[in-house]
């Protein structure tokens, strides 16, 4: 069984939707990439041409199992690698051509885990988000401190400013890391598996907060995840990746086709449409008598 390539859909004219009128922030157009150990050998991993757009205030989920090309796509978006073909643009500028400092003013990246080697106070950690704006030794200006405070308040963590990061709970730490990203005053926030070490309550809280922040600050938010249920519930758009191919781009309702998801995630699944029009995914236990 093969799944049709969806590049035509992704490339097509902007679909008429309630989001119309919002500025397009991120434009990934036919971007591809290949890793190889050396020029003589065939590439060890390839991400074939992938296209999607993210508008301001929109939350896009890049969804796929392990080794599907999510991290590669993330690196293409951050501009740390340049696409072999195609383009990745943020507000019309190619991200890989921006200098490191400008890129950090426009794109904030939140990784699964930020190891903290030396103990640092959460407040100081958030102030690091002002680094791309500072000069030389970057002693915090009054404005920097205000922005950092505001960022902490936005994630509901003002009270954590004086705490040592190593002593925070997983959810608290995640909020502080997100606050640092907000202090960068970015146009695009990228999160790499942000829910990995969180319990379900903290996961839902984080994603709700991300939606809210995207709306208030008109960020585009891109979340890389393998959590089917969370992406269905919170994403405006889903980019589905499998073995380095972009299989489908669209709203969760469009992407969440049972056969497609079963093939990608290699698990028996049930997809139903919930009351809000968002799909729900359930695991279908493989029991005797089930012949599908």
């Amino acid at each position, binding site marked *: 069984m093969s799944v049709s390539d969806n590049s035509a859909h992704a490339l097509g004219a902007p679909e008429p939707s309630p989001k119309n009128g919002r500025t397009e922030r991120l434009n990934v157009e036919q971007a591809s990439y290949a890793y190889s150990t050396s020029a003589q050998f065939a590439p060890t991993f390839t991400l074939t041409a992938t296209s999607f757009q993210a508008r301001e205030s929109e939350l896009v989920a890049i969804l796929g199992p392990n080794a599907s090309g999510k991290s590669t796509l993330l690196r293409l978006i*951050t501009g*740390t690698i340049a696409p072999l073909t195609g383009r990745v643009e943020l507000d019309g500028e190619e991200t890989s051509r921006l200098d*490191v*400092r400008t*890129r*950090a*003013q426009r*794109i*904030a*990246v939140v*990784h699964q885990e*930020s*190891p*903290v*080697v*030396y*103990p*640092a*106070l959460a*407040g*100081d950690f958030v*102030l*690091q*988000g002002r*680094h*791309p704006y*500072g000069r*030389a*030794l*970057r*002693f*915090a200006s009054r404005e*920097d*401190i205000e922005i*950092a*405070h505001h960022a902490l308040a936005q994630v509901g963590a003002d009270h954590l*400013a*004086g705490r040592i990061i190593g002593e925070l709970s997983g959810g608290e730490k995640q909020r502080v890391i997100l606050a640092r990203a907000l202090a*960068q005053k970015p146009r695009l926030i990228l999160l790499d598996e942000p829910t990995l070490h969180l319990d379900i309550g903290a996961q839902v809280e984080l994603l709700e907060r991300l939606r809210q922040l995207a709306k208030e600050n008109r960020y585009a938010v891109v979340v890389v995840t393998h959590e089917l249920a969370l992406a269905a519930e919170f994403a405006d758009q889903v980019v589905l990746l499998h073995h380095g191919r972009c299989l489908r781009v669209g709203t969760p309702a469009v992407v969440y086709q049972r056969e497609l998801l079963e093939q990608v995630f290699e698990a028996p699944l049930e997809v139903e449409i919930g009351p809000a029009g968002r799909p729900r995914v359930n695991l279908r236990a493989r029991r005797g008598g089930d012949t599908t």
Partner: protein
Amino acid sequence: MRPLTVQRVLWTCGGLAVVLMACVLLSLKLGAVPISITDLVVNLGRLAIGQSDQLPTEYRLIVFDLRLPRILLGILVGAALSVSGASFQATLRNRLADPYILGVSSGAALGAILALGVAPQFAFITPIGAFLGAVATIAAVYFLGRREGELDSATLLLGGVISASFLTAIIMFLMTTLAGRDLRGAVFWMMGDLSTPVPASLRWIFIVGLFAGIGAIYTTAADLNLLLTGEREAIHLGVEVTRVKMVVYISASLLTALAVSASGQIGYVGLLVPHAVRRVFGSDYRILIPASAFGGAIAIVLADTLARTVAAPTELPVGAMTAMAGAPVFIYLLRRGMR
């Protein structure tokens, strides 16, 4: 939120400068010939107002020709080694990094010895040889310390220790085969010694090199704070990682080379001092670097004073003092890190 301010950095440096002055006075006073503090202050005052001809001769010999140059050299070496260690710790993300443990000091010593052997008539060749030796060693150890593309803490330290051992063997080989030449002896290079003053023609090179090296590293202090969190993180926060690492590796190699070519290998200073400074003043590199410079100067002045007085009139090599204090701290930090 209580972010670091320029004032706090300056106050800290001021305070440490006062402590350093006190240590210098103490070191001038103590020794085989004890001298009273009052005499010292009076005569230092005379020197300061340009009446050096009024100093008693014997006094001038002991205090100003023997002890003071040695103390000034100790300040230079201590500051250089501590800042070098602190900055290696950030770029290698390893708080056990130290020019001695990484083998950089041995590389510098070998470079200096080769330079001395090849062109003994040119004094300025020695620090240049030391610098080249230091740069080559840190590059080699950096690549030895990588596993699957990532810097691995234990592998890096092992790579450093093994490199040091290898380079030391070559030094011993040279010392034996070139026995006829004036290479300052194995103990000088292995254990460190502050008793040989820097040749007058090199003094300015050393002072300018020290300030240039520390200054260059200090310009990257804010970036080093972020590098500690990881290179990927630092890039996403706008740090030009490659440039910062180049600045640090070259400057730290320069500082190590200056220290080693003037005083041999004095170990563990770059480990002990930044560790102590971190405990007292926190781990922000904007305060850690200047405070380590002062702290290193204080540590070496005190260690050398001990080395001169403990077994007086015999002198111990100052590196023996620092190693006796440093090795246990290394073990302690290593074991704490393992948990």
